[in-house]
C-alpha cells in the first residue's frame, strides 16, 4: 500500500509497473487518473491551486484504503494526490488497485475515488478570467459516494 501527497507530477506507468514487478499472482490492475480541465461551470480555467489539511489528509486516505481492503480482496493499492499549483491537462490524482480478478479491482478503484472526493480534505481554487474562486462541492459527488452505503 502506498499513499503519497506531493507537489510533483506522478508517472502512472511507473506506479503500475512497481505494483506488478516480480509478482505473478495479480490478474487485474484498475487505475484512474483525474486531470485538471480547462473549463468548469461554464468558465475558462487557466490554473488551479490545491490546498489540503496536512496530517488529516494522510489519515483520511489511509482510512478509505483500509475500508476498500475490508470490502474486497485486494493485492495492492496506490493513491497519489498532488497539491499546489496545477495547469489544465495536469494530472491531479492517481488511484491504482491490484487484485486477482477485475471485478474487485474496478469496484475498489471507483470506491476509493468516490470516497476521496467527499472525505479527503483537499480544496481546489480556480483561476478564471473573472478572478479566483473556490470550487463548490458537487451534489453528484455525494451521490456517487452514497452508492457504496450498503443497507
Amino acid at each position, binding site marked *: 500500500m502506498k499513499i503519497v501527497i506531493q507537489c510533483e507530477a506522478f508517472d502512472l506507468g511507473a506506479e503500475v509497473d512497481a505494483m506488478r514487478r516480480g509478482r505473478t499472482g495479480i490478474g487485474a490492475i484498475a487505475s484512474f487518473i*483525474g486531470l485538471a480541465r480547462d473549463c468548469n461551470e461554464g468558465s475558462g480555467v487557466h490554473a488551479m491551486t*490545491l*490546498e*489540503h*489539511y496536512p*496530517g*488529516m489528509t494522510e*489519515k*483520511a486516505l489511509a482510512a478509505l484504503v483500509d475500508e476498500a481492503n475490508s470490502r474486497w480482496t485486494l493485492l495492492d493499492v496506490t493513491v497519489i*494526490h498532488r497539491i499546489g499549483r496545477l495547469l489544465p491537462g495536469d494530472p*491531479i*490524482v492517481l488511484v491504482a488497485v491490484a487484485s486477482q480478478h477485475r471485478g474487485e479491482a474496478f469496484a475498489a478503484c471507483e470506491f476509493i*475515488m468516490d470516497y*476521496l*472526493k*467527499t*472525505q*479527503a*480534505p*483537499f*480544496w*481546489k*481554487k480556480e483561476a478564471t478570467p473573472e478572478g479566483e474562486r*473556490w*470550487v*463548490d*462541492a*458537487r451534489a453528484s459527488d455525494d451521490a456517487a459516494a452514497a452508492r457504496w452505503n450498503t443497507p
Partner: protein
Amino acid sequence: MKLRVLYFARLRERFGVAEETLDFSGATAADLVVHLQSRGDVWAEELAAGKAFRVAINQDLVALDARLPEHAEVAIFPPVTGG
C-alpha cells in the same frame, strides 16, 4: 479547556486566520461553533445555520454533537473538493 482551531480554504481566507489557540469552556463542536458565531461579521455569516461547513476533531470528521477532548485539534472547513 485548551483547543487548537484550524481553518482551511475559503473559511481561512474569509476569517483571515489559519490557526488559533482558544481557552474554551463548552463541551461539544456545536458549542464551539456558537462561540465562533458570536464574534459576528464573517464568523456569524459563514457559520450560520444552513451553511455548509465541516468539523474535524483530531483529524476525524465529526458531527456537531461530538464532544471536544482536552487539547483537541479542531478544524473547520468547507465541503472538500479534491480528486
